[in-house]
């Protein structure tokens, strides 16, 4: 009886289709109609025309081949990148862009981490930031302008709200502007949390640099500085994308601050509007507390102090 099926191709195909559809219905079709598959965070906003243009370029250039956009709820991952990804962050991504390979770092929390200028310069020449980076250069995106006609269609298809002026403005923007605008919005529906290294609050450190005036520590600090800080603050601390570290302005006001505040800024980064020692931050400095341990932060400070003495 059962053997009959191997003589009846149509029946065989129907049975095969049913067998194939069982798992499909259970794990793909059924969930589609549950709320759990369509979550949305309250403060998640639709993309603006410029951001959507950037996302289109991100897809066109295949950025997702090397960069993921999902932080797993694992201790070290949260420390390295920021808060783990929430289901409700991706409602406007059609399709999702989580990726499957991290040849480069995850980008789920890249939005707001660096200033725009950082991204512009980094896209143009990643190797000037990280000498040994293998990322291709994307400066050529500066040479193409956006097409407002296309983008209006894209906005409509996605059902995102837009204004005529917003669309018209696109003609003055380059593809690189759009890509940077997209970078800056990724993951921003979740409030940036200070990096939490387990058992180590940012205040849990010496008030004085334990390596003060230790030339060996300053030498170690130079390596860390060159890899992580020089691209924004200059190789000699003269400034660039970020402020100078060798003039006597600190957090936009004349007058140096104690080591302790240096530690605070390096560990937690700067957050717009936050006040430190009566000085208001403008944001732009990413937190390094998850990536650099206490000693390495102090060594960098030693090196910065040695630059200031020059």
């Amino acid at each position, binding site marked *: 009886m059962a053997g009959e099926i191997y003589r009846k191709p149509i029946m065989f195909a129907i049975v095969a289709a049913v067998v194939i559809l069982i798992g499909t219905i259970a794990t793909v079709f059924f969930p589609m109609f549950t709320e759990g*598959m369509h*979550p949305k965070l309250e403060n998640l906003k639709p993309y603006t025309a410029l951001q959507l243009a950037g996302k289109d370029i991100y897809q066109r250039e*295949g950025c997702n081949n090397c960069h993921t956009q999902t932080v*797993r709820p*694992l201790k070290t991952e949260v420390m390295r990148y920021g808060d783990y990804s929430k*289901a409700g962050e991706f409602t*406007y991504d059609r399709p*999702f862009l989580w990726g499957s390979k991290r040849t480069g770092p995850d980008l789920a929390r890249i939005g707001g981490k660096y200033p725009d200028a950082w991204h512009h310069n980094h896209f143009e020449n*990643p190797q000037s930031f990280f000498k040994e980076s293998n990322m291709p250069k994307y400066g050529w995106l500066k040479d193409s302008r956006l097409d407002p006609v296309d983008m209006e269609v894209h906005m409509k298809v996605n059902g995102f709200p837009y204004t005529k002026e917003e669309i018209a403005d696109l003609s003055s923007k380059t593809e690189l502007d759009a890509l940077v605008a997209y970078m800056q919005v990724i993951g921003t529906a979740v409030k940036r949390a200070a990096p939490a290294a387990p058992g180590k609050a940012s205040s849990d450190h010496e008030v004085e640099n334990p390596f003060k005036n230790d030339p060996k520590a300053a030498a170690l600090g130079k390596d860390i500085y060159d890899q992580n800080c020089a691209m924004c603050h200059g190789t000699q601390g003269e400034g660039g994308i970020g402020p100078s570290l060798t003039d006597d302005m600190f957090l936009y006001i004349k007058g140096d601050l104690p080591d302790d505040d240096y530690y605070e800024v390096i560990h937690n980064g700067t957050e717009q509007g936050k006040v430190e020692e009566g000085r208001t931050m403008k944001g732009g400095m990413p937190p390094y507390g998850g990536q650099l*341990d206490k000693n390495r932060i102090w060594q960098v400070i030693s090196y910065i102090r040695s630059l200031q003495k020059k």
Partner: protein
Amino acid sequence: MNDYQYDHQTVKGFIVSSIFWGVVGILIGLWISIQLWKPELNIPPFFTYGRLRVVHTNGLAFGLGIGAIFGISYYIVMRLTKRPLLFPKLARFHLYLFNVAIALAAVSLFMGMNQSLEYAELEWPLDIGVVILWVIFAVNVFGTIIKRKEEQMYISLWYIIATVVAVAVLYIVNNITVPAGLFKSYSVFAGVNSANVQWWYGHNAVGFIFTTPILAMFYYFLPKSTGLPIFSHRLSIIAFWSLVFAYLWTGAHHLVYTPLPDWIQTLGIVFTLFLIAPSWGSVVNGYYTVGSDWSKMQTNYLTKFFIMGITFYGLQTVQGPTQAIRVVSSLIHYTDWVPGHVHMGTMGWVTMTVAASVYYIIPKIYNTEIYSIKVANTHFWLVLIGQVMFSVTMWITGIQQGALWKATNADGSLKYTFMEGLVKNYPFWQLRTVAGLIFTVGMLFFIYNIYMTMRKGKAPAASQA
């Protein structure tokens, strides 16, 4: 003379086309493997890693893989139904359309038209072309099987039928988009839901492109070339039905630790573990088939291709489920371990089995013997060495990446910045390029052998005419 002459031209056409696209795909693979440690080789806008990588995967999965599947399936179907294809002219049209579609696919991917769905990158106009290709294939395969002259359908036909049915469902559903112009579209699925649909598709592309049609070849050509009957018909029945049942549940193992609802992840992992059983059903069947006379490994040069192929399949189907387990996934996911895994399946299992099938078919079509068994053996050893070296290198660097990303200092802070981890990959990535080169040289021996066999075969045919 040969009643099947016309159909054989189509089979041959698909084989030659698939070899051509295979060469393109492999060369681009070598190129992007070098780009990873030498970024100067990125030439914008068309030849950056982000664009080339999808030409590599699509070129090999669709160009080499599906081209070979279409052609070799036609051959198998004709033999097992004991009749020519029902629509030979349609099959010829299929061949032309296939090549046009792959060429356009390659151009569109160079241009950056990309849906960002892995293994479903092609934009909607090409998706329609792909569906037409499969409909043509389905019509011919089903038509020929229905009008067959052999009552019983052999195992290979089950796998071909399952392939057609599954690909239809998977490809159409995952590619449903809303066009926003001719070259751009947005998926109807968003966020978490789109991730679930994509990896249901993505993993079953592995299941129904890199597994079932290749098993159809394995079950047909292993007994044909060795003269040994399949060990257990009953085992092949159980393996078939449990494989096509379980595969569809497993896609979520690609999304472990993502925001996908936990129950779908867990269900995916459980079914992935179960999948070892039906996979090994075919592995055991293959081993025991040759087990009745192991001397075939020495006396018949094709036997070792099939046995090595099914061995890689066996390793692949144990490694895959292992990777699905959460604790393992947390270490190796997003690292180079995964390309190491994938390439064992594609360079080992798929390419080994397809090459052996082609070695069997081409001399049959030309009514001659293979040009050189020695060259075939050289091909075998080179691709074997290249493949093992490739995968082992990637596994080591994958474990290293995963470990460096997780490493912490005594106070709990991270031990390595991302860049400090990245630079440690470079020597391994260079070694991988060397492995790829060895594999490529092996494939050149294969192509040379096939070319010479065709030349040898043509001579008598021409003299008769």
